[in-house]
């Protein structure tokens, strides 16, 4: 499974756009790129997933270049409640289903 590399931590202010970039040089053809959010003492929560180009939903956008060796999660106008750990992971679509490996994540601090 492809490994991911992302910044350990990031700081931002309320109302700003935050972009978190993840590197996954060994991504395989069947791998999807997924981002999760985790608050302390809770399980991770799905944010967004993509395979290539750009994906947007009600909470975030995901930008994936043509070579798919990196991806960028974009959070528009963050608030204090967006302070959390954000995980970038690549998912292996295997015959039995879907398996992902979590990296260390990026700890985002949103300040007032």
């Amino acid at each position: 499974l492809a490994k991911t590399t992302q910044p350990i931590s990031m700081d931002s202010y309320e109302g700003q756009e935050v972009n978190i970039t993840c590197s996954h040089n060994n991504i395989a053809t069947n791998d999807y790129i997924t981002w999760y959010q985790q608050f302390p003492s809770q399980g991770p929560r799905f944010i967004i997933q993509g395979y290539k180009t750009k994906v947007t939903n009600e909470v975030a956008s995901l930008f994936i270049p043509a070579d798919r060796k990196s991806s960028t999660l974009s959070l528009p106008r963050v608030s204090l409640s967006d302070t959390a750990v954000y995980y970038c992971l690549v998912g292996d679509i295997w015959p039995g289903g879907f398996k992902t490996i979590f990296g260390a994540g990026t700890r985002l601090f949103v300040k007032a």
Partner: protein
Amino acid sequence: SQTIHQWPATLVQPVGSPLSLECTVEGTSNPNLYWYRQAAGRGLQLLFYSVGIGQISSEVPQNLSASRPQDRQFILSSKKLLLSDSGFYLCAWSTYKKGSYEQYFGPGTRLTVT
């Protein structure tokens, strides 16, 4: 709607004691199930995953084991706990939904081995 349950929520166990953590999923059939562990301040480590009853794959060799006696039940066990087994244990299931493969996590069990 689908829900995932884990119990107990917290557990304090002495070194050398056995362990049994249970996870059940409602509202879906034949889910892929996963056990993760998260040490304090660290990322999630995949321990086991299962694609069906009695089918268990281990990601990391250790003194833990997993079983899936029923379609929507996943159990994590140990015969003798080590201090290093302390952590936050999360059960998850995955599904294909609206063009995406998603994992849904349970509330977790915080295990402290003393």
